[in-house]
Protein backbone atom coordinates (compact mmCIF):
# COMPACT_ATOMS: atom_id res chain seq x y z
CA UNK A 1 0.00 0.00 0.00
CA UNK A 2 2.79 2.46 0.89
CA UNK A 3 4.51 1.72 -2.40
CA UNK A 4 1.26 2.52 -4.19
CA UNK A 5 0.89 5.75 -2.27
CA UNK A 6 4.50 6.77 -3.01
CA UNK A 7 4.06 5.96 -6.69
CA UNK A 8 0.87 7.99 -6.81
CA UNK A 9 2.52 10.93 -5.02
CA UNK A 10 5.44 10.87 -7.46
CA UNK A 11 2.96 10.75 -10.35
CA UNK A 12 1.02 13.74 -9.09
CA UNK A 13 4.18 15.74 -8.38
CA UNK A 14 5.71 14.98 -11.77
CA UNK A 15 2.47 15.73 -13.58
CA UNK A 16 3.08 19.41 -12.93
CA UNK A 17 6.85 19.69 -12.51
CA UNK A 18 7.05 23.48 -12.73
CA UNK A 19 4.48 23.98 -10.01
CA UNK A 20 6.05 21.30 -7.85
CA UNK A 21 9.46 22.94 -8.20
CA UNK A 22 8.12 26.37 -7.29
CA UNK A 23 6.28 24.82 -4.36
CA UNK A 24 9.46 23.38 -2.89
CA UNK A 25 11.66 26.36 -3.74
CA UNK A 26 11.15 27.78 -0.25
CA UNK A 27 12.35 24.53 1.31
CA UNK A 28 15.26 24.36 -1.13
CA UNK A 29 16.39 27.86 -0.19
CA UNK A 30 15.85 27.29 3.53
CA UNK A 31 17.74 24.01 3.69
CA UNK A 32 20.49 25.26 1.38
CA UNK A 33 20.96 28.37 3.51
CA UNK A 34 21.12 26.41 6.77
CA UNK A 35 23.54 23.85 5.36
CA UNK A 36 25.78 26.49 3.77
CA UNK A 37 25.82 28.56 6.98
CA UNK A 38 26.65 25.62 9.18
CA UNK A 39 29.28 24.24 6.81
CA UNK A 40 31.14 27.55 6.57
CA UNK A 41 30.44 28.43 10.21
CA UNK A 42 31.64 25.11 11.51
CA UNK A 43 34.70 25.29 9.28
CA UNK A 44 35.69 28.70 10.58
CA UNK A 45 35.01 27.77 14.19
CA UNK A 46 37.10 24.67 13.69
CA UNK A 47 39.87 26.74 12.20
CA UNK A 48 39.90 29.18 15.08
CA UNK A 49 39.99 26.24 17.46
CA UNK A 50 42.86 24.57 15.66
CA UNK A 51 44.66 27.91 15.56
CA UNK A 52 44.27 28.21 19.30
CA UNK A 53 45.71 24.73 19.64
CA UNK A 54 48.51 25.57 17.17
CA UNK A 55 49.48 28.58 19.26
CA UNK A 56 50.88 25.97 21.56
CA UNK A 57 52.54 27.77 24.44
CA UNK A 58 50.67 30.54 26.12
CA UNK A 59 51.57 33.62 24.19
CA UNK A 60 51.47 37.32 24.99
CA UNK A 61 52.11 40.20 22.64
CA UNK A 62 53.42 43.49 23.94
CA UNK A 63 53.00 46.60 21.84
CA UNK A 64 53.43 50.30 22.45
CA UNK A 65 50.22 52.37 22.48
CA UNK A 66 46.68 51.52 23.49
CA UNK A 67 44.57 49.84 20.93
CA UNK A 68 42.15 47.11 20.15
CA UNK A 69 43.38 43.83 18.89
CA UNK A 70 46.09 42.86 16.45
CA UNK A 71 46.92 45.52 13.93
CA UNK A 72 46.38 48.48 16.23
CA UNK A 73 48.97 51.20 15.63
CA UNK A 74 51.45 52.44 18.15
CA UNK A 75 50.43 56.06 17.66
CA UNK A 76 52.58 58.56 19.55
CA UNK A 77 53.56 56.22 22.37
CA UNK A 78 57.32 55.68 22.73
CA UNK A 79 58.65 52.60 21.06
CA UNK A 80 60.02 49.50 22.73
CA UNK A 81 63.70 48.68 22.88
CA UNK A 82 66.09 45.77 23.21
CA UNK A 83 66.44 46.71 26.88
CA UNK A 84 62.72 46.10 27.39
CA UNK A 85 63.17 42.62 25.94
CA UNK A 86 66.03 41.92 28.27
CA UNK A 87 64.18 43.31 31.29
CA UNK A 88 61.10 41.17 30.61
CA UNK A 89 63.21 38.06 30.13
CA UNK A 90 65.20 38.64 33.29
CA UNK A 91 62.67 40.11 35.68
CA UNK A 92 59.46 38.19 34.97
CA UNK A 93 60.16 34.64 36.09
CA UNK A 94 57.24 33.02 34.25
CA UNK A 95 58.45 34.33 30.89
CA UNK A 96 60.16 31.61 28.91
CA UNK A 97 61.05 33.53 25.79
CA UNK A 98 60.71 37.18 24.84
CA UNK A 99 61.42 37.89 21.19
CA UNK A 100 61.74 41.35 19.65
CA UNK A 101 59.96 42.05 16.38
CA UNK A 102 60.02 45.00 14.04
CA UNK A 103 58.28 44.90 10.70
CA UNK A 104 57.53 46.86 7.63
CA UNK A 105 55.60 45.94 4.55
CA UNK A 106 57.23 46.29 1.14
CA UNK A 107 57.74 44.73 -2.27
CA UNK A 108 60.18 41.87 -2.57
CA UNK A 109 61.78 41.14 -5.94
CA UNK A 110 63.34 37.98 -7.28
CA UNK A 111 64.31 37.88 -10.94
CA UNK A 112 61.30 39.23 -12.79
CA UNK A 113 58.87 38.24 -10.01
CA UNK A 114 57.81 40.70 -7.37
CA UNK A 115 55.55 40.28 -4.40
CA UNK A 116 54.29 42.56 -1.65
CA UNK A 117 54.81 41.16 1.82
CA UNK A 118 55.87 41.92 5.39
CA UNK A 119 59.56 42.08 6.28
CA UNK A 120 60.17 41.36 9.95
CA UNK A 121 63.37 41.84 11.83
CA UNK A 122 63.75 39.37 14.69
CA UNK A 123 65.95 36.49 15.86
CA UNK A 124 65.73 32.76 16.53
CA UNK A 125 63.81 33.33 19.75
CA UNK A 126 60.77 34.30 17.68
CA UNK A 127 60.92 31.04 15.70
CA UNK A 128 60.91 29.18 18.98
CA UNK A 129 58.18 31.18 20.71
CA UNK A 130 55.83 31.23 17.71
CA UNK A 131 56.57 27.58 17.00
CA UNK A 132 57.84 28.11 13.46
CA UNK A 133 59.46 25.05 11.93
CA UNK A 134 62.20 25.31 9.35
CA UNK A 135 61.12 23.27 6.33
CA UNK A 136 64.31 23.74 4.34
CA UNK A 137 67.63 25.40 5.04
CA UNK A 138 68.42 26.67 8.53
CA UNK A 139 67.72 29.38 11.08
CA UNK A 140 69.98 32.38 11.79
CA UNK A 141 73.56 31.94 12.98
CA UNK A 142 74.53 34.01 16.03
CA UNK A 143 77.15 35.76 13.94
CA UNK A 144 74.57 36.80 11.39
CA UNK A 145 72.34 38.15 14.18
CA UNK A 146 75.16 40.07 15.82
CA UNK A 147 76.45 41.46 12.57
CA UNK A 148 73.05 42.20 11.06
CA UNK A 149 73.87 40.19 7.94
CA UNK A 150 71.62 40.40 4.90
CA UNK A 151 70.14 36.91 5.18
CA UNK A 152 66.50 35.92 5.40
CA UNK A 153 64.09 33.12 6.07
CA UNK A 154 60.92 33.20 3.95
CA UNK A 155 57.37 31.99 4.47
CA UNK A 156 55.67 29.44 2.22
CA UNK A 157 53.48 32.01 0.45
CA UNK A 158 56.45 34.24 -0.40
CA UNK A 159 58.32 31.20 -1.67
CA UNK A 160 55.51 30.12 -3.97
CA UNK A 161 54.96 33.66 -5.24
CA UNK A 162 58.62 34.34 -6.01
CA UNK A 163 60.08 30.93 -6.70
CA UNK A 164 57.14 28.73 -7.65
CA UNK A 165 58.39 25.20 -7.22
CA UNK A 166 62.07 26.17 -7.55
CA UNK A 167 64.50 25.84 -4.64
CA UNK A 168 64.77 29.21 -2.86
CA UNK A 169 67.72 28.34 -0.61
CA UNK A 170 70.81 30.31 -1.56
CA UNK A 171 68.92 32.65 -3.90
CA UNK A 172 69.15 36.38 -3.42
CA UNK A 173 66.01 38.44 -3.11
CA UNK A 174 65.84 42.23 -3.07
CA UNK A 175 63.77 44.77 -1.20
CA UNK A 176 64.45 48.47 -0.67
CA UNK A 177 68.00 48.30 -2.04
CA UNK A 178 68.83 45.38 0.21
CA UNK A 179 70.04 42.22 -1.43
CA UNK A 180 69.28 39.42 0.92
CA UNK A 181 70.33 35.79 0.74
CA UNK A 182 67.60 33.21 1.47
CA UNK A 183 68.91 30.77 4.09
CA UNK A 184 65.71 29.08 5.18
CA UNK A 185 62.11 28.26 4.33
CA UNK A 186 59.43 28.11 7.02
CA UNK A 187 56.92 25.26 7.18
CA UNK A 188 53.44 26.49 6.11
CA UNK A 189 50.96 27.39 8.85
CA UNK A 190 48.01 28.49 6.69
CA UNK A 191 45.53 31.25 7.36
CA UNK A 192 45.18 32.57 10.90
CA UNK A 193 41.93 32.96 12.79
CA UNK A 194 42.16 36.66 12.04
CA UNK A 195 41.86 35.84 8.35
CA UNK A 196 45.42 36.78 7.42
CA UNK A 197 47.88 34.48 5.70
CA UNK A 198 50.50 33.59 8.31
CA UNK A 199 52.91 32.35 5.66
CA UNK A 200 53.08 35.81 4.14
CA UNK A 201 56.37 36.87 5.75
CA UNK A 202 60.10 37.34 5.37
CA UNK A 203 62.25 37.16 8.50
CA UNK A 204 65.69 38.77 8.78
CA UNK A 205 68.04 39.50 11.70
CA UNK A 206 66.63 42.35 13.81
CA UNK A 207 69.87 44.29 13.51
CA UNK A 208 69.84 44.03 9.75
CA UNK A 209 66.24 45.27 9.67
CA UNK A 210 66.92 48.18 12.03
CA UNK A 211 70.04 49.31 10.20
CA UNK A 212 69.19 48.66 6.57
CA UNK A 213 65.41 49.24 6.50
CA UNK A 214 63.99 51.05 9.53
CA UNK A 215 66.99 53.26 10.19
CA UNK A 216 66.37 53.23 13.94
CA UNK A 217 66.75 50.98 16.98
CA UNK A 218 63.01 50.60 17.60
CA UNK A 219 61.19 47.41 18.35
CA UNK A 220 57.50 47.45 17.47
CA UNK A 221 56.40 44.24 19.15
CA UNK A 222 57.68 41.89 21.82
CA UNK A 223 56.48 38.36 21.36
CA UNK A 224 56.43 36.51 24.69
CA UNK A 225 55.87 32.86 25.53
CA UNK A 226 55.05 31.79 29.07
CA UNK A 227 56.53 28.75 30.78
CA UNK A 228 54.40 25.59 30.90
CA UNK A 229 52.25 25.53 34.01
CA UNK A 230 52.66 29.24 34.69
CA UNK A 231 49.59 31.44 34.72
CA UNK A 232 49.22 33.64 31.67
CA UNK A 233 47.17 36.14 33.67
CA UNK A 234 49.88 36.47 36.34
CA UNK A 235 52.57 36.84 33.69
CA UNK A 236 50.49 39.48 31.93
CA UNK A 237 50.06 41.42 35.19
CA UNK A 238 53.79 41.13 35.98
CA UNK A 239 54.75 42.39 32.54
CA UNK A 240 52.29 45.27 32.79
CA UNK A 241 53.69 46.27 36.19
CA UNK A 242 57.25 46.07 34.88
CA UNK A 243 56.47 48.12 31.81
CA UNK A 244 54.63 50.81 33.77
CA UNK A 245 57.70 51.12 35.93
CA UNK A 246 60.10 51.20 33.00
CA UNK A 247 57.99 53.74 31.10
CA UNK A 248 57.49 55.88 34.21
CA UNK A 249 53.71 55.76 34.25
CA UNK A 250 52.38 57.15 37.50
CA UNK A 251 49.49 55.69 39.47
CA UNK A 252 46.14 56.62 37.89
CA UNK A 253 47.72 57.25 34.49
CA UNK A 254 46.72 55.06 31.53
CA UNK A 255 49.12 52.53 30.10
CA UNK A 256 50.82 53.66 26.89
CA UNK A 257 51.36 50.03 25.86
CA UNK A 258 49.18 46.94 25.53
CA UNK A 259 49.62 43.29 26.34
CA UNK A 260 47.42 40.91 24.37
CA UNK A 261 46.72 37.32 25.29
CA UNK A 262 46.49 35.55 21.93
CA UNK A 263 44.60 32.63 23.35
CA UNK A 264 41.99 34.92 24.86
CA UNK A 265 41.46 36.71 21.57
CA UNK A 266 41.27 33.43 19.71
CA UNK A 267 38.72 31.95 22.06
CA UNK A 268 36.70 35.15 21.86
CA UNK A 269 36.74 34.77 18.09
CA UNK A 270 35.54 31.19 18.46
CA UNK A 271 32.64 32.48 20.52
CA UNK A 272 31.77 35.16 17.96
CA UNK A 273 31.99 32.67 15.14
CA UNK A 274 29.67 30.26 16.97
CA UNK A 275 27.14 32.95 17.82
CA UNK A 276 27.18 34.29 14.26
CA UNK A 277 26.68 30.83 12.81
CA UNK A 278 23.76 30.29 15.17
CA UNK A 279 22.14 33.59 14.32
CA UNK A 280 22.50 33.18 10.57
CA UNK A 281 21.18 29.64 10.79
CA UNK A 282 18.19 30.87 12.74
CA UNK A 283 17.44 33.37 9.99
CA UNK A 284 17.83 30.61 7.43
CA UNK A 285 15.51 28.39 9.45
CA UNK A 286 12.80 31.02 9.16
CA UNK A 287 12.83 30.50 5.42
CA UNK A 288 12.17 26.82 6.08
CA UNK A 289 9.04 27.87 7.90
CA UNK A 290 8.06 30.07 4.97
CA UNK A 291 8.76 27.13 2.67
CA UNK A 292 6.46 24.97 4.75
CA UNK A 293 3.67 27.50 4.46
CA UNK A 294 4.22 27.49 0.68
CA UNK A 295 3.72 23.74 0.63
CA UNK A 296 0.59 24.01 2.73
CA UNK A 297 -0.78 26.64 0.37
CA UNK A 298 -0.24 24.53 -2.74
CA UNK A 299 -1.55 21.40 -1.03
CA UNK A 300 -4.76 23.26 -0.16
CA UNK A 301 -5.09 24.36 -3.78
CA UNK A 302 -4.42 20.79 -4.84
CA UNK A 303 -7.11 19.42 -2.51
CA UNK A 304 -9.63 21.89 -3.94
CA UNK A 305 -8.66 21.06 -7.51
CA UNK A 306 -8.90 17.36 -6.86
CA UNK A 307 -12.12 17.41 -4.84
CA UNK A 308 -13.86 15.24 -7.40
CA UNK A 309 -11.00 12.75 -7.43
CA UNK A 310 -11.20 12.56 -3.63
CA UNK A 311 -14.95 12.00 -3.91
CA UNK A 312 -14.40 9.11 -6.31
CA UNK A 313 -11.81 7.56 -4.03
CA UNK A 314 -14.07 7.87 -0.99
CA UNK A 315 -17.07 6.48 -2.89
CA UNK A 316 -15.26 3.36 -4.03
CA UNK A 317 -14.14 2.60 -0.52
CA UNK A 318 -11.08 4.62 0.53
CA UNK A 319 -11.12 5.22 4.27
CA UNK A 320 -10.41 8.63 5.78
CA UNK A 321 -7.02 7.39 6.87
CA UNK A 322 -6.10 6.24 3.37
CA UNK A 323 -6.95 9.62 1.84
CA UNK A 324 -5.13 11.40 4.66
CA UNK A 325 -2.02 9.30 4.15
CA UNK A 326 -2.14 9.87 0.39
CA UNK A 327 -2.06 13.66 0.73
CA UNK A 328 0.34 13.60 3.65
CA UNK A 329 2.77 11.43 1.71
CA UNK A 330 2.47 13.81 -1.22
CA UNK A 331 3.41 16.76 1.00
CA UNK A 332 6.27 14.86 2.61
CA UNK A 333 7.63 13.65 -0.74
CA UNK A 334 7.49 17.25 -1.98
CA UNK A 335 9.27 18.68 1.03
CA UNK A 336 11.82 15.85 1.13
CA UNK A 337 12.59 16.41 -2.54
CA UNK A 338 13.03 20.09 -1.73
CA UNK A 339 15.20 19.16 1.23
CA UNK A 340 17.42 16.92 -0.88
CA UNK A 341 17.89 19.59 -3.54
CA UNK A 342 18.57 22.05 -0.73
CA UNK A 343 21.19 19.79 0.82
CA UNK A 344 23.02 19.44 -2.50
CA UNK A 345 22.83 23.17 -3.22
CA UNK A 346 23.77 24.04 0.38
CA UNK A 347 26.79 21.75 0.39
CA UNK A 348 27.93 23.17 -2.94
CA UNK A 349 27.53 26.73 -1.62
CA UNK A 350 29.16 25.85 1.69
CA UNK A 351 32.16 24.20 0.07
CA UNK A 352 32.59 27.07 -2.36
CA UNK A 353 32.26 29.57 0.48
CA UNK A 354 34.74 27.65 2.60
CA UNK A 355 37.24 27.67 -0.26
CA UNK A 356 36.78 31.39 -0.88
CA UNK A 357 37.13 32.20 2.83
CA UNK A 358 40.07 29.81 3.23
CA UNK A 359 38.49 27.89 6.05
CA UNK A 360 38.67 24.10 6.29
CA UNK A 361 35.87 22.24 4.54
CA UNK A 362 33.86 20.24 7.01
CA UNK A 363 30.41 19.09 5.92
CA UNK A 364 28.70 17.69 8.97
CA UNK A 365 26.74 14.47 8.34
CA UNK A 366 24.65 15.24 11.41
CA UNK A 367 23.60 18.59 9.94
CA UNK A 368 22.72 16.94 6.64
CA UNK A 369 20.70 14.32 8.48
CA UNK A 370 18.95 16.99 10.52
CA UNK A 371 18.11 18.99 7.39
CA UNK A 372 16.65 15.82 5.91
CA UNK A 373 14.59 15.12 9.02
CA UNK A 374 13.54 18.71 9.30
CA UNK A 375 12.23 18.89 5.75
CA UNK A 376 10.28 15.68 6.33
CA UNK A 377 8.84 17.24 9.48
CA UNK A 378 7.90 20.37 7.54
CA UNK A 379 6.01 18.14 5.07
CA UNK A 380 4.15 16.36 7.87
CA UNK A 381 3.30 19.50 9.83
CA UNK A 382 2.24 21.64 6.88
CA UNK A 383 0.75 18.77 4.89
CA UNK A 384 -1.45 17.59 7.74
CA UNK A 385 -4.04 20.32 7.59
CA UNK A 386 -4.69 20.05 3.83
CA UNK A 387 -4.63 16.24 4.04
CA UNK A 388 -7.15 16.23 6.85
CA UNK A 389 -9.35 18.57 4.86
CA UNK A 390 -9.21 16.11 1.94
CA UNK A 391 -9.94 13.12 4.16
CA UNK A 392 -12.94 14.76 5.81
CA UNK A 393 -14.65 15.73 2.55
CA UNK A 394 -18.21 14.54 2.19
CA UNK A 395 -18.12 12.10 -0.73
CA UNK A 396 -21.52 13.24 -2.00
CA UNK A 397 -20.50 16.90 -2.03
CA UNK A 398 -17.11 16.03 -3.48
CA UNK A 399 -18.63 14.05 -6.35
CA UNK A 400 -20.96 16.93 -7.14
CA UNK A 401 -17.98 19.36 -7.30
CA UNK A 402 -17.50 21.34 -10.56
Amino acid at each position, binding site marked *: *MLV*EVLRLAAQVIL*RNPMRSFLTVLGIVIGVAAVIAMLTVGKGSTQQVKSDVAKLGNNLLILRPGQGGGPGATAGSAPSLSARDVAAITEQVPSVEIAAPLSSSSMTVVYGNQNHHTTITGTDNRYLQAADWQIAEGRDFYDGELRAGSAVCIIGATVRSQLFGAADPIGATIRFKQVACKVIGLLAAKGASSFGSDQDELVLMPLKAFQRRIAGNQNISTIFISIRDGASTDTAKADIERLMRERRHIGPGEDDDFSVFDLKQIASMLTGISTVLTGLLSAVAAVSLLVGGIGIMNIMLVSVTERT*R*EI*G*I*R*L*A*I*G*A*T*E*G*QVLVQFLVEAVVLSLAGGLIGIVVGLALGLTGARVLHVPISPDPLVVLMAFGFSAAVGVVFGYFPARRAARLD*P*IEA*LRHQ
Partner: protein
Amino acid sequence: MTGGAEPLIALAGVGKSYGSGEAEVQALADISLAIRAGEFVAIMGPSGSGKSTAMNILGCLDVPSRGSYRYAGVEVGDLDRDQRALLRRNCLGFVFQGYNLLPRTTALENVELPLVYRGVPRAERRRLAFEALARVGLEGRVDHDPSELSGGQQQRVAIARAIVGQPDVILADEPTGNLDSARSHEIMQLMSTLNRDAGITVLMVTHEPDMAAYAGRLVHFLDGRIAADGSGAPHAG
Protein backbone atom coordinates in the same frame (compact mmCIF):
# COMPACT_ATOMS: atom_id res chain seq x y z
CA MET B 1 -24.38 -13.99 2.84
CA THR B 2 -28.10 -13.25 2.66
CA GLY B 3 -30.60 -15.66 4.08
CA GLY B 4 -33.69 -16.54 2.12
CA ALA B 5 -35.88 -14.79 4.60
CA GLU B 6 -34.10 -11.45 4.96
CA PRO B 7 -33.85 -9.17 1.93
CA LEU B 8 -30.36 -7.89 0.99
CA ILE B 9 -31.52 -4.33 1.37
CA ALA B 10 -34.24 -3.31 3.80
CA LEU B 11 -35.37 0.27 4.35
CA ALA B 12 -37.95 0.70 7.11
CA GLY B 13 -39.49 4.10 7.80
CA VAL B 14 -36.42 5.91 6.44
CA GLY B 15 -36.56 9.69 6.38
CA LYS B 16 -33.92 12.28 5.55
CA SER B 17 -34.03 15.96 6.40
CA TYR B 18 -31.56 18.73 5.77
CA GLY B 19 -31.22 21.85 7.89
CA SER B 20 -33.15 22.36 11.09
CA GLY B 21 -36.04 24.32 12.56
CA GLU B 22 -37.87 26.59 10.12
CA ALA B 23 -35.36 25.89 7.36
CA GLU B 24 -35.77 22.12 7.62
CA VAL B 25 -36.23 20.46 4.25
CA GLN B 26 -37.54 16.96 4.11
CA ALA B 27 -35.94 15.08 1.21
CA LEU B 28 -37.25 11.67 2.13
CA ALA B 29 -40.29 10.85 4.21
CA ASP B 30 -40.93 7.44 5.64
CA ILE B 31 -39.62 5.18 2.91
CA SER B 32 -39.89 1.46 3.25
CA LEU B 33 -38.35 -0.74 0.59
CA ALA B 34 -37.06 -4.29 0.48
CA ILE B 35 -34.77 -5.52 -2.26
CA ARG B 36 -33.73 -9.13 -2.54
CA ALA B 37 -30.37 -10.27 -3.84
CA GLY B 38 -30.35 -10.61 -7.61
CA GLU B 39 -33.06 -8.06 -8.37
CA PHE B 40 -32.72 -5.42 -11.09
CA VAL B 41 -34.54 -2.35 -9.80
CA ALA B 42 -35.09 0.89 -11.72
CA ILE B 43 -35.84 3.97 -9.68
CA MET B 44 -37.70 6.73 -11.47
CA GLY B 45 -39.19 10.03 -10.51
CA PRO B 46 -38.98 13.73 -11.27
CA SER B 47 -36.20 15.96 -9.99
CA GLY B 48 -36.48 16.60 -6.27
CA SER B 49 -38.54 13.50 -5.70
CA GLY B 50 -35.94 12.14 -3.33
CA LYS B 51 -34.54 9.39 -5.55
CA SER B 52 -30.98 10.75 -5.41
CA THR B 53 -31.16 11.04 -1.64
CA ALA B 54 -32.42 7.49 -1.50
CA MET B 55 -29.57 6.31 -3.75
CA ASN B 56 -27.01 8.06 -1.52
CA ILE B 57 -28.44 6.30 1.51
CA LEU B 58 -28.65 2.95 -0.29
CA GLY B 59 -25.02 3.46 -1.39
CA CYS B 60 -23.97 4.10 2.22
CA LEU B 61 -22.63 7.51 1.23
CA ASP B 62 -25.22 9.09 3.51
CA VAL B 63 -27.13 7.94 6.57
CA PRO B 64 -30.87 8.28 7.25
CA SER B 65 -32.11 10.93 9.67
CA ARG B 66 -34.80 8.53 10.85
CA GLY B 67 -35.73 4.93 10.41
CA SER B 68 -33.62 1.89 9.72
CA TYR B 69 -31.48 0.79 6.78
CA ARG B 70 -30.30 -2.75 7.10
CA TYR B 71 -27.83 -4.01 4.54
CA ALA B 72 -27.44 -7.78 4.70
CA GLY B 73 -28.70 -7.61 8.26
CA VAL B 74 -26.30 -4.83 9.29
CA GLU B 75 -27.77 -1.57 10.59
CA VAL B 76 -25.98 0.99 8.38
CA GLY B 77 -26.99 3.89 10.62
CA ASP B 78 -24.85 2.39 13.38
CA LEU B 79 -21.72 2.30 11.24
CA ASP B 80 -19.15 5.10 11.35
CA ARG B 81 -17.64 6.76 8.29
CA ASP B 82 -14.81 4.28 7.86
CA GLN B 83 -17.03 1.25 8.43
CA ARG B 84 -19.35 2.51 5.70
CA ALA B 85 -16.30 3.03 3.47
CA LEU B 86 -15.37 -0.62 4.07
CA LEU B 87 -18.92 -1.72 3.26
CA ARG B 88 -18.80 0.25 -0.02
CA ARG B 89 -15.36 -1.14 -0.79
CA ASN B 90 -16.32 -4.77 -0.25
CA CYS B 91 -20.00 -5.00 -1.25
CA LEU B 92 -20.98 -2.13 -3.53
CA GLY B 93 -20.06 -0.88 -6.96
CA PHE B 94 -20.88 2.60 -8.25
CA VAL B 95 -21.66 3.78 -11.76
CA PHE B 96 -22.27 7.51 -12.23
CA GLN B 97 -23.89 9.59 -14.93
CA GLY B 98 -20.63 11.54 -15.46
CA TYR B 99 -18.47 8.32 -15.38
CA ASN B 100 -16.22 9.82 -12.71
CA LEU B 101 -13.02 8.20 -13.91
CA LEU B 102 -9.72 9.62 -12.67
CA PRO B 103 -8.27 11.86 -15.37
CA ARG B 104 -4.76 11.20 -16.75
CA THR B 105 -5.04 7.68 -15.46
CA THR B 106 -5.31 4.68 -17.78
CA ALA B 107 -8.43 2.53 -17.98
CA LEU B 108 -6.57 -0.31 -16.33
CA GLU B 109 -5.41 1.85 -13.41
CA ASN B 110 -8.91 3.25 -12.98
CA VAL B 111 -10.33 -0.25 -12.75
CA GLU B 112 -7.57 -1.29 -10.34
CA LEU B 113 -8.35 1.53 -7.93
CA PRO B 114 -10.88 -0.27 -5.67
CA LEU B 115 -8.46 -3.17 -5.37
CA VAL B 116 -5.65 -0.80 -4.33
CA TYR B 117 -7.70 0.15 -1.29
CA ARG B 118 -8.36 -3.51 -0.58
CA GLY B 119 -4.63 -4.12 -0.50
CA VAL B 120 -4.68 -6.64 -3.37
CA PRO B 121 -1.11 -7.24 -4.62
CA ARG B 122 -0.21 -5.50 -7.85
CA ALA B 123 0.04 -8.52 -10.15
CA GLU B 124 -3.27 -9.91 -8.93
CA ARG B 125 -4.83 -6.49 -9.30
CA ARG B 126 -3.66 -6.20 -12.90
CA ARG B 127 -5.13 -9.58 -13.72
CA LEU B 128 -8.52 -8.86 -12.15
CA ALA B 129 -8.71 -5.39 -13.72
CA PHE B 130 -7.85 -6.84 -17.10
CA GLU B 131 -10.57 -9.49 -16.68
CA ALA B 132 -13.13 -6.86 -15.71
CA LEU B 133 -12.23 -4.74 -18.73
CA ALA B 134 -12.52 -7.82 -20.93
CA ARG B 135 -16.01 -8.46 -19.53
CA VAL B 136 -17.13 -5.02 -20.68
CA GLY B 137 -15.46 -5.52 -24.06
CA LEU B 138 -12.58 -3.10 -23.62
CA GLU B 139 -9.59 -5.45 -23.55
CA GLY B 140 -8.14 -3.45 -26.44
CA ARG B 141 -8.28 -0.15 -24.58
CA VAL B 142 -6.60 -0.91 -21.27
CA ASP B 143 -3.81 1.64 -21.73
CA HIS B 144 -6.01 4.51 -22.82
CA ASP B 145 -6.71 7.59 -20.73
CA PRO B 146 -10.37 8.52 -20.23
CA SER B 147 -9.78 11.50 -22.54
CA GLU B 148 -8.95 9.05 -25.34
CA LEU B 149 -12.19 7.10 -24.91
CA SER B 150 -15.72 7.80 -26.10
CA GLY B 151 -18.53 8.36 -23.60
CA GLY B 152 -19.79 4.81 -24.02
CA GLN B 153 -16.30 3.42 -23.53
CA GLN B 154 -15.75 5.56 -20.45
CA GLN B 155 -18.96 4.25 -18.94
CA ARG B 156 -17.82 0.70 -19.67
CA VAL B 157 -14.58 1.42 -17.83
CA ALA B 158 -16.66 2.74 -14.93
CA ILE B 159 -18.73 -0.47 -14.97
CA ALA B 160 -15.54 -2.54 -15.05
CA ARG B 161 -14.36 -0.55 -12.00
CA ALA B 162 -17.69 -1.24 -10.27
CA ILE B 163 -17.54 -5.01 -10.87
CA VAL B 164 -13.82 -5.63 -10.43
CA GLY B 165 -14.29 -6.24 -6.72
CA GLN B 166 -17.16 -8.67 -7.32
CA PRO B 167 -19.75 -6.62 -5.49
CA ASP B 168 -23.18 -7.77 -4.34
CA VAL B 169 -24.83 -4.61 -5.62
CA ILE B 170 -24.22 -2.09 -8.38
CA LEU B 171 -25.68 1.35 -7.78
CA ALA B 172 -26.03 3.20 -11.05
CA ASP B 173 -27.10 6.83 -11.04
CA GLU B 174 -28.44 7.66 -14.51
CA PRO B 175 -25.71 5.61 -16.18
CA THR B 176 -27.01 6.43 -19.65
CA GLY B 177 -27.79 10.08 -18.99
CA ASN B 178 -24.89 11.34 -21.11
CA LEU B 179 -25.10 8.75 -23.91
CA ASP B 180 -26.95 8.48 -27.18
CA SER B 181 -29.63 5.86 -27.62
CA ALA B 182 -27.46 3.17 -29.24
CA ARG B 183 -24.71 3.47 -26.57
CA SER B 184 -27.41 3.57 -23.88
CA HIS B 185 -28.85 0.26 -25.00
CA GLU B 186 -25.37 -1.29 -25.09
CA ILE B 187 -24.77 -0.18 -21.51
CA MET B 188 -28.17 -1.49 -20.40
CA GLN B 189 -27.53 -4.83 -22.07
CA LEU B 190 -24.25 -5.02 -20.22
CA MET B 191 -26.02 -4.28 -16.93
CA SER B 192 -28.67 -6.90 -17.65
CA THR B 193 -26.00 -9.46 -18.41
CA LEU B 194 -24.19 -8.72 -15.18
CA ASN B 195 -27.46 -8.98 -13.29
CA ARG B 196 -28.53 -12.20 -14.94
CA ASP B 197 -25.20 -14.04 -15.32
CA ALA B 198 -23.23 -12.80 -12.34
CA GLY B 199 -26.22 -12.44 -10.05
CA ILE B 200 -25.30 -8.88 -9.17
CA THR B 201 -28.16 -6.87 -7.73
CA VAL B 202 -28.61 -3.67 -9.74
CA LEU B 203 -30.19 -0.47 -8.45
CA MET B 204 -30.47 2.12 -11.19
CA VAL B 205 -31.85 5.64 -11.24
CA THR B 206 -33.07 6.70 -14.67
CA HIS B 207 -35.30 9.22 -16.37
CA GLU B 208 -35.80 7.14 -19.49
CA PRO B 209 -38.62 4.57 -19.61
CA ASP B 210 -36.67 2.75 -22.38
CA MET B 211 -33.85 2.09 -19.96
CA ALA B 212 -36.13 1.36 -17.03
CA ALA B 213 -37.68 -1.33 -19.21
CA TYR B 214 -34.53 -3.48 -18.72
CA ALA B 215 -35.30 -3.68 -15.00
CA GLY B 216 -37.46 -6.36 -13.44
CA ARG B 217 -38.90 -3.93 -10.93
CA LEU B 218 -39.83 -0.29 -11.11
CA VAL B 219 -39.95 2.03 -8.11
CA HIS B 220 -41.47 5.47 -8.62
CA PHE B 221 -40.56 8.31 -6.30
CA LEU B 222 -42.68 11.42 -5.81
CA ASP B 223 -42.25 14.16 -3.19
CA GLY B 224 -39.96 12.07 -1.04
CA ARG B 225 -42.23 9.07 -1.02
CA ILE B 226 -42.59 5.90 -3.00
CA ALA B 227 -45.55 6.47 -5.29
CA ALA B 228 -45.49 3.12 -7.04
CA ASP B 229 -43.55 -0.13 -6.72
CA GLY B 230 -44.15 -2.94 -9.11
CA SER B 231 -42.77 -5.19 -11.75
CA GLY B 232 -41.53 -3.45 -14.86
CA ALA B 233 -41.64 -4.53 -18.42
CA PRO B 234 -40.28 -7.98 -19.21
CA HIS B 235 -36.52 -8.19 -19.77
CA ALA B 236 -35.47 -6.93 -23.12
CA GLY B 237 -32.89 -9.71 -23.37
